[in-house]
């Protein structure tokens, strides 16, 4: 976890964009391992593939086409700092009353979730509950998700359709979903 923080800080400071992209890949990998610790293997898998894989490649592609140095910002970051801290403070305030981490009795683990755990195997025949929920109970979220990718695919085509190089890479990300 501490690594995450350090890398995020480094990303913020570093001005070489190639380095930043690499760091963000590592960041995603770390994130994925955190997810594994938190029992979210599916999410970890996806994060590793998407965050560390596709995103990094996309960014590298972008950088190859643009530039790799970030310039020093001209304006003072006072306002952003304030905004960020207010938001953060609001969140800290919000967590105060949240159920403790990992509490089995916390409401999110009580209401709907047990139903899935108990019945999904019987109702859908899929042992991986995440997959079961994803494809069945909340299938329309997944349909929406595919639509999002489709939208992005169309968008990339529309934006870069004439440019050969990107046109071949980006839609692949979309194609992967189907």
């Amino acid at each position, binding site marked *: 976890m501490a690594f995450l923080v350090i890398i995020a800080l480094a990303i913020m400071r570093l001005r070489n964009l190639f380095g930043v992209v690499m760091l963000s890949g590592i960041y995603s990998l770390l994130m994925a391992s955190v997810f594994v610790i938190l029992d979210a293997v599916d999410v970890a898998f996806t994060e590793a593939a998407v965050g560390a894989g596709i995103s990094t490649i996309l960014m590298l592609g972008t950088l190859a086409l643009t530039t790799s140095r970030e310039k020093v910002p001209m304006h003072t970051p006072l306002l952003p700092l304030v905004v960020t801290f207010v938001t953060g403070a609001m969140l800290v305030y919000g967590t105060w*009353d949240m159920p403790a981490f990992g509490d089995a009795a916390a*409401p999110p683990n009580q209401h709907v979730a047990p139903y899935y755990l108990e019945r999904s195997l019987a109702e859908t025949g899929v042992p*991986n509950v*995440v997959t079961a929920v994803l494809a069945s109970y909340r299938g329309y979220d997944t349909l929406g998700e595919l639509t999002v990718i489709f939208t992005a695919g169309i968008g990339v085509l529309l934006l870069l359709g004439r440019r050969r190089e990107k046109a071949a890479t980006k839609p692949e990300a979309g194609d992967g979903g189907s």
Partner: protein
Amino acid sequence: MRHHVILRVIAKLGIPFIVLFALYVQFHGDFGPGGGFQAGVIFGAAFILYALIFGLDNALKVAPMNLVITFIAVGLLVFAGVGVARQVSRLRRARRQFRRRTASRHPARRARSRDHGRRGHDRDLLHLRGPGPVAVEFLIGHYNYWIFIFLMMLGFYVVVARGNLVKKIIGLNIFQASVFLLYISIGKVLGGTAPIIIDGGGPVTYSNPLPHVLILTAIVVGVATTALGLSLVIRINEAYGTIEEDEINDMDQEP
């Protein structure tokens, strides 16, 4: 890159394995972690690797542009079609599944209200931790959340404060990833394991699968946004010759 012999060889050897792994993930998705989406991503990554190393023209020979576009559209249609078909078939089986109700507030819950608290907790008995004494327990209990908040603030700060368009998007990624962490943290049950039911479900404690599902969706949405944002950056770079926000603003002022 395409001139490096080592790269080419390794890639040539590696790509089939990657594809194979993708297929494995695809068809094993029901039982282990992974599934169609992850498999697709791996497959796609393999393809991009190919394109990067052997050049785009070769890649396009393997998968012509039109084919790609068609695949995208057909893919979505297939999924939607499955959804519709399923809807219709289920309806035939149990027509009463579709209910139109008058505006009573919780018909669904009342209809399905059964006690399914295996752990014996009443659903409405909510455990609230007041601000109370800041005990060690509390600190530990919320440690994860605070990490998430810190990361979120970092990402948010990068988005708002940085002028480089690519870096802004990276910031967005960090920002979003931190939110994923929040969701997953919510679903974690201490002592639980991944929610993959073995042996038809025994007395094992599982972590909450729902946030995982949500985050899977959110990750995908995130990467779609990233892709779109980056292609916008490329176009902006073409149009303005820079990806620094301040310079773009200056250029917009002048003409």
